[in-house]
Structures are given as structure tokens and as C-alpha cells.
């Protein structure tokens, strides 16, 4: 429908300009009639609005290192970029085809190892430019998809999920059995500065590496977006929604899933290849369960129902991981808590929250929910503090750390019952206030949405 909507760029809520993942226009956004779509000219791949978005994105990616040029910020940018490709490739399965994979790291890792070994082979001969090496990773990921996709795509649902988990474990344990290929515990390392420098670019400096990653990321994003606008991309949505019906319009759901999986493996492999070049090191962890879990989290938190959801997720999770891990040992716990909260209260992910608010914005009604938001802000903050307080006390207590826990410069005795009671009290107060005030938010939304629906119906 995106392609169709492109022909009618100017109407309101119905036409989301964002690249969406297939056809997930929710019932919240009924379309307008088909008048505009009767246009006979074939709409261009990127109509003006979308062209603008992609252009802005390209400029942003070019300009970012001008601001974030410090070592740390720059390597964060590199990592985010790589994860954007990886998360988008994951969503080709989950969001677009309805395949819940617990083993997507297999393709990322395969790509990373293949790239690293090729790099090390090239070290002696240098026949392929380093900038093209991620393609080797892509091909390795693709081969992985050909191999493992064949055994796993016959069924979707639980069967697929279980098989993906099994394959993930299988490959991860195999990686430890063949230290010659996977480097055992220490992994495989290499040096990306090989061969003659073309135009003085060696990819030695991180900034050069960043631009290489950014270029690949941009191309992959565009390619994956374009894929959602093809017959295969749309049939993937159809197979996700109703595999049985897809059969009765001539499609073999298994082939649709299989091809999608091969292509997703390809893009995951490119991401893996970039990561190999970026870190000049690949360990078995790259293709293990942790990596598979993180990419699932990124896609889900960002929003699997929208093309751009996983991009948000990749940025957010990468930054959170670094920011939170920097200040507390309990970061994994917070991660789990955050994920849980999202699954429970915003299963559509950040992207769907944005889309909901954008609908209000388009209708000029966004301010109507703001008072309710202001009301719950304080209860949210109190709850937040209560949770953090409790978690930190518990962590310090469990670890028996000698140095005292410091919050706002004040020493806190994690052994005293008073401290625990205090934290519990804060949490309880926060939760009670939240329970009391949240209905205002629901009510505000209900009223505003009823208003918008009424207007649309009229």
C-alpha cells in the first residue's frame, strides 16, 4: 500500500510517510478512497517526501562524525550502524514473514568469520579491496540461510522458533569444537589495513571505517526497504497473516519463508562482515545465543510492525547497553526489566508509540493528552527511583561490596533494614500514584481518538 499511498502524499493520518513494514496499517488508520490511486503513471521508487527522508538520512550519516568525532562516540556510531543492518535483517523474518527466530546470530557470525578468514588470506595477496569484504560475509550468511532455512521453514510458529533455537545452539557449540576455524576461546583476529591504499584510504583510522560502515548500512537499508515493495515482500506479509490462504492463491508458503530467510541471512552476514572489519576480531560469542537475543530485543523494542522500528531499536539498545553498563553492574537486570515492560505495555514497540502520537499530531490533537501525561510524570519518576533504589541496594547487598553504595553523594548502608524499607516505600508510593493517575491517560486517549474517528467518519 505504501506504493499506492505514494501517489497521494498529502492526506492526513491515513498516509504515513514513514517506510512501513508491509501492510500493517492498523485498523486505527483506515485509508481514504481509491480515487487518487487511479493514477496511471507508475509512481517513482522514491516519491518526493520519501526521497527527502532518505536524503536527510544520508546527510545525517555523513554529518554525524563531524559532531561525534571522539574515539568513544565514533565507535558507538559504528556499532549502531552495524546493528541497524542486523536488526533490519532480523525483522525481515519476524515482522515481515512472521518467523520468530532465536538463532539469527548464526548468519551474523558466519558472515563475520568468513570475512575475517578472507581478510587474513588476503593479507598475503590482497586481490580484493577491503571495502568489498562485507560482501563475502553476506554470501556466507546467504549460504547459511540456504542450508538452515531448508530445514526450518517448512512450518512457521513454534516449530520454526524451536528449530532456530536448535540450530543456534548447534552452531554455537560446533564453533567451540573447531578451534582452527573459530579460534576457540580467543577468537580470530586480523588486520584490516592490507593492500594498496586506494585514494589514500586504508581503513586504518576509525573515521574511514565509519564511512565504510555507513555506506554499507545505507545501501542495505535501501535494499531491504525496496524488498518490502516487491511481490516477494508482499507475499511474505500474506504468508505471515494466513499461510493457508496464500497456498490457495498459488504460493508455496515454504518457499516464501525460505527465500526471505536466505535474503535475511545475506544482510545479517553483511552486518557480521562489517563487525569483523570494525573490531578486527571475531569470537564464538558472535554467533551465540546472546547475540541472537540482543537482535530480537532490538527489533521488538523498536517495533516489528514498522520498517523503521528495528532502526530505532538498534540505536536505543546499543546506546542503553553502553550508557547503563557504564554506571551500574546491574545493567543486564535493567535490560531485562526494560524489555519486559515494553512487551507488557507497548508490544508494538517504540515505532508504534510514535505512530500513535503522530496520528494525534496530524489531527492537531496532541496537546489534548499532554495534561494527562504531566499528571503521570511524577508517579512515573517516583516508581522509577523506587525500582532503581531497590535494584541497586539488592546488587550491592548480594555482592557484599566493600565500598558503600553512593546515591547523590550520600553513603547508603545496604545492610540496614531501614534502607530496604525506604526503597520499598518509594516504589509502593510510586506504583499507587501511578495506579491512581493512569486512568486519566487512558481516558484522554479514548476521548481524543473518539473525536478523530468521528471526524473521519463524517
Amino acid at each position, binding site marked *: *500500500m505504501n*506504493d*499506492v*499511498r*505514494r501517489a497521494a502524499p498529502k492526506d492526513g493520518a*491515513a498516509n504515513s510517510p514513514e517506510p512501513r513494514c*508491509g*501492510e*500493517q*496499517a*492498523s*485498523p486505527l488508520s*483506515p*485509508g*481514504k*478512497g*481509491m480515487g487518487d*490511486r*487511479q493514477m496511471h503513471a*507508475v*509512481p517513482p*521508487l522514491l516519491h518526493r517526501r520519501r526521497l527527502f527522508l532518505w536524503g536527510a538520512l544520508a546527510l545525517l550519516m555523513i554529518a554525524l562524525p563531524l559532531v561525534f568525532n571522539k574515539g568513544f562516540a565514533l565507535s558507538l556510531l559504528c556499532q549502531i550502524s552495524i546493528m541497524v543492518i542486523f536488526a533490519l535483517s532480523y525483522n525481515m523474518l519476524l515482522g515481515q514473514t512472521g518467523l520468530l527466530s532465536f538463532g539469527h546470530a548464526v548468519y551474523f557470525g558466519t558472515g563475520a568469520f568468513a570475512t575475517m578468514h578472507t581478510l587474513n588470506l588476503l593479507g598475503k595477496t590482497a586481490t580484493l579491496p577491503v571495502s568489498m569484504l562485507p560482501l563475502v560475509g553476506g554470501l556466507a550468511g546467504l549460504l547459511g540461510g540456504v542450508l538452515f532455512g531448508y530445514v526450518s521453514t517448512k512450518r512457521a510458529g513454534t516449530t520454526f522458533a524451536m528449530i532456530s533455537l536448535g540450530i543456534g545452539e548447534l552452531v554455537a557449540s560446533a564453533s567451540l569444537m573447531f578451534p582452527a576455524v573459530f579460534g576457540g576461546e580467543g577468537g580470530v583476529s586480523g588486520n584490516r589495513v592490507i593492500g594498496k591504499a586506494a585514494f589514500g584510504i586504508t581503513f586504518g583510522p576509525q573515521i574511514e571505517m565509519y564511512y565504510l560502515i555507513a555506506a554499507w548500512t545505507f545501501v542495505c537499508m535501501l535494499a531491504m526497504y*525496496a*524488498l518490502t*515493495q*516487491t*511481490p*516477494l*515482500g*508482499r*507475499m511474505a*506479509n*500474506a504468508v*505471515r*497473516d*494466513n499461510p*493457508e*490462504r*496464500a*497456498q*490457495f*492463491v*498459488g*504460493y*508455496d508458503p515454504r*518457499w*516464501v519463508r525460505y*527465500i526471505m530467510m536466505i*535474503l535475511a541471512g545475506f544482510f545479517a552476514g553483511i552486518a557480521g562482515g562489517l563487525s569483523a572489519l570494525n573490531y578486527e576480531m571475531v569470537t564464538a560469542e558472535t554467533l551465540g545465543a546472546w547475540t541472537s537475543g540482543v537482535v530480537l530485543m532490538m527489533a521488538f523494542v523498536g517495533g516489528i510492525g514498522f520498517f523503521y522500528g528495528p532502526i530505532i531499536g538498534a540505536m536505543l539498545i546499543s546506546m542503553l547497553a553502553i550508557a547503563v553498563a557504564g554506571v551500574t553492574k546491574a545493567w543486564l537486570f535493567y535490560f531485562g526489566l526494560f524489555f519486559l515492560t515494553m512487551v507488557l505495555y507497548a508490544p508494538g514497540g517504540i515505532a508504534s508509540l510514535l505512530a500513535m502520537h503522530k496520528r494525534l499530531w496530524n489531527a492537531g490533537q496532541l496537546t489534548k493528552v499532554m495534561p494527562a501525561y504531566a499528571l503521570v510524570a511524577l508517579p512515573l519518576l517516583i516508581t522509577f527511583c523506587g525500582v532503581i533504589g531497590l535494584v541497586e541496594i539488592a546488587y550491592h547487598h548480594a555482592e557484599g561490596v566493600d565500598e558503600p553504595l553512593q546515591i547523590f553523594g550520600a553513603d547508603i548502608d545496604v545492610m540496614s533494614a531501614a534502607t530496604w524499607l525506604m526503597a520499598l516505600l518509594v516504589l509502593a508510593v510510586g506504583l499507587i500514584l501511578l495506579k491512581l493517575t493512569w486512568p486519566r491517560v487512558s481516558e484522554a486517549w479514548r476521548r481524543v481518538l473518539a473525536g478523530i474517528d468521528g471526524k473521519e467518519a463524517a
Partner: protein
Amino acid sequence: MNVPALQLTEVRKSFGQTVIINGVNLSVPQGERHAIIGPNGAGKSTLFHLASARFPVTSGGIFLKGESVTSLKPHQINRRGLSRSFQVTNIFTNLTVFENVRCSVLWALDYRYSFWQRLAALRDANQQARRVIAEIGLAHRSDTVAGILSYAEQRALEIGITIAGGADVILLDEPTAGMSKSETGDAVALIRRVTEGKTLIMVEHDMSVVFDLADRISVLVYGEIIATGTPAEIRANRTVQEAYLGTTFAEEHHD
């Protein structure tokens, strides 16, 4: 043109010990509109599931335009020109009406698993989808998500998806079930229009629809076809009257 469009020979189907279809023979010539009637639970839907390969047969043969399709998969049979609708609406609920119909024309137009062509640039697919949507009277709804259509609209879409690919053997399972009188009238007109020149086999409960549309009728009772013939023959058939038509028939056609 004397090969039957669809032929079933000695088709049997049992679920475990229960025999549901018990040696059905049926031959539908090309271009015929054939109705299958029978009491609830007679096995009419099951017969459609067998003909369209949703279920495998326990024994017997199924021939589409003379070729055996007995052991094929649903998508393979569909590619050979047999398309079917479902008694319980079976559509892509999260896709728009337009996308539902466009998905149904893609294979027929040979786009297969293409990931190198843009949907928006496929003029023939888009035009055919629009034409079908206009035909089923959902033009004003084409950007609506199929899941929120009214019941009658979903039934129309179900027919649209079934005929969109241009299959020449169409199986419709109770297309008018649950519709009001006027909706039924519209549906009959629609079915007549979209199956022009094609072979139609339909399961239908509404006798006025059956006698209105069908060239020939088969009566299925307890998994067996007890009679096949023109509407007049079926109306006059003793066994049919006793076994099935009885009251319904008398009420609707003898007063």
C-alpha cells in the same frame, strides 16, 4: 472440450475410523455451473477440501481438465487453474482490500517470488486488482484493512480473492451463507458475472440460489452422492425428496 473440468472417481475420505466421504463419483463438464447440496455435515466442505488438496484423499482419484491432481499440493492445483473460496471467511486480515486482491493475482501473472520488481510498477497486476475490486463492489473500501470490513464485504472479498487470478475452475463454499435477502441477490448477480465462461462448482444451502444458478445439481448425503441432474430432474427425484429436500423443497417450490 469433452474432458471434464473436474472429475472425482471413487473418492473416499475418513478421519480415523469415521468415513466422511464414501466413494464419490462426480464429473463436471467445462463451462457448467454445478451446485452441491445436502444436509449439514454431509461432507460438502470436505469434498471441496479434497478437490483443492487441503486434505489428502484416503483413496480415489481427482482429475483437473483430464490430468490427475490427486497427490498435488494446494498451491500446485491452484496454479493449474482451480481456485476456491472458504465457508468460513479466509482472507489476509491485516492487509488492505487492495493488497488482498493484488496478492491473489501475482502468481497468475507470473511474478512468482520476484524480489527484483516493484509492485507499484506492475501495471497489469494493479489494473487487474482494481478491476476485480470494482467488480465485487468494494472500490470505496480498497484501502481498508480487510479485518475490519463488514461480514458481507468480507464475503465479497473472499469471492474476489478466489476469482482474481483468473482460474477457470471455481469452487465456492456457501458464498451466501449468513447474508440477508438483498445481499444474497447481489451475491448471486456477482457470482453469475464473475464466473461467466468458467466452470463453477458451489455448495449452497439457499435453494432459490441453487435453482437460479445451477445447470446441474448433485445431492450429497452422508458422504455419498445420491443423485445428480438438472434442477428439474432433482426436483422430481423421489429419493432426493425423501432423503433430503423434503420440507425445504416443498415449502419453497410448491406453494
